[in-house]
């Protein structure tokens, strides 16, 4: 096929001007949008407000779709469970028997712990949980890893709040709209989490690799202290994440870097918990709060 007729509009002046004007608009617009990108280098969430309209309008759709498919996403796990079901059954039963004794021991320890705490008059109130919501969609086409949460500013979600699942850390809130929030996932290349090894507190920094794995660098100089199988939890440094949230397990060690795999899979978890920022929880000592905390304590002590 020969090429289609030229877009050159011939000698018609008006058509010529119109074509020229369209290119002027296109080039000016391209330059302007390049400026927008440059602005977002310095302020990555600056234009998040622009997204409010679209995300609010499309939220019901995503929620509806999510409700429809929430069972489907784990179908491969279900199928895999049927494979080797017999031998797995036997080994699981053995495991249950050994675990039963441990659970009884743990219960006794928990009781003893509560009794000791009462003796010490230690108030252990965990007020970090804010709400539970679902992840409804994600930036599946972009190189960044964002997920959209079905709760926003009106529900009390604020940028910077950590998001976790029962299995471990998911990420933190990046920006919010009235009813949705954008969560920067743990595996995003821009998400840096201070972690430590669970059993001996070797400090490290976890950075997402963008492909579902994590790059873990030890803070100590010298040889890499990690080995495959090490469990990493948040260290609480930095004031965002609570300490001791499970983060990842080390799967491979390569020179200075250890590669980890997140314990919580955001595509599998049904609901996630938004927590208050750690700093906000521990430094809540303004007089009003302190007074309300002291008052019931006195009331308890009086009779």
């Amino acid at each position: 096929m020969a090429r289609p007729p030229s877009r050159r509009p011939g000698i018609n002046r008006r058509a010529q001007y119109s074509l020229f004007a369209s290119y002027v608009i296109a080039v000016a617009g391209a330059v302007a949008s390049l400026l927008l990108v440059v602005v977002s280098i310095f302020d990555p969430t600056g234009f998040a407000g622009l997204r409010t309209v679209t995300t609010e309008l499309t939220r019901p759709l995503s929620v509806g779709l999510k409700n429809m498919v929430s069972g489907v996403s784990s179908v491969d796990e279900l199928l895999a469970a049927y494979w080797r079901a017999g031998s797995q059954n036997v080994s699981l039963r053995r495991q249950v028997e050994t675990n039963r004794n441990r659970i009884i021991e743990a219960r006794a320890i928990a009781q003893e712990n509560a009794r000791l705490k009462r003796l010490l008059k230690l108030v252990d109130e965990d007020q970090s949980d804010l709400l539970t919501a679902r992840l409804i969609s994600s930036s599946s086409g972009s190189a960044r890893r964002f997920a959209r949460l079905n709760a926003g500013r009106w529900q009390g979600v604020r940028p910077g709040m950590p998001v976790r699942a029962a299995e471990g850390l998911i990420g933190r809130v990046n920006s919010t709209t009235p009813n949705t929030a954008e969560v920067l996932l743990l595996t995003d290349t821009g998400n840096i989490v201070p972690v430590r090894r669970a059993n001996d507190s070797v400090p490290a920094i976890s950075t997402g690799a963008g492909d579902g794995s994590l790059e873990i660098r030890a803070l100590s100089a010298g040889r890499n202290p990690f080995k495959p199988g090490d469990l990493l939890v948040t260290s609480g440094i930095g004031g965002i994440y609570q300490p001791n949230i499970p983060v990842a397990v080390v799967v491979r060690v390569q020179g200075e870097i250890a590669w980890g795999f997140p314990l919580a899979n955001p595509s599998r978890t049904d609901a996630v918990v938004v927590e208050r920022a750690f700093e906000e929880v521990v430094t809540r000592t303004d007089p009003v709060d302190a007074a309300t905390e002291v008052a019931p304590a006195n009331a308890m002590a009086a009779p």
Partner: protein
Amino acid sequence: MIDPHLQHVPRLGRHPSRFRLAGTPVITVMLGSALTLLPIVAQSPVMPPFGLLLLLAWRLLRPELWRAWIGLPLGLFDDMMSGQPIGSAMFLWTVTLIGVDAFEHRLVWRSYRQDWLIACLAIIFCIIGGWFFARITGGGEIRLILVAPQMLWSVLLFPFVVRQCARIDRWRVMA
């Protein structure tokens, strides 16, 4: 009726509405951008940029349909839907459309393969551009290899998208 496809023969003196003629391409591109609303929480950039594929398909199928500035509003919508910084697709799509215009002007012979080649270059340009913008706007050290699979299957998916676009186009121009 002998053949069900004969039900919608174009009739003399009947024209499709202006909204159908002008709106259909725009709406399909926006729907392509909106595919990120699917309830998938992806662990890596896996989904092809359907908005871009549809934009290129319409542009190559119907060169007279749009001027280059159409990349600005459609790109803005795509930026709102994808997790890219605002301005990223606006810039890349507009530059791509200007580039396609320039390329088309120089090309003597055109066929399906040349269209695919143009689309291939455009997809690679847009995905690498998107990767670069994500990297400089707080993305940290994103490796280029991360977007390579997405690039590959976007290029391979393009002929299919063109075919679907042509099907929609046939409906669009028939009254």
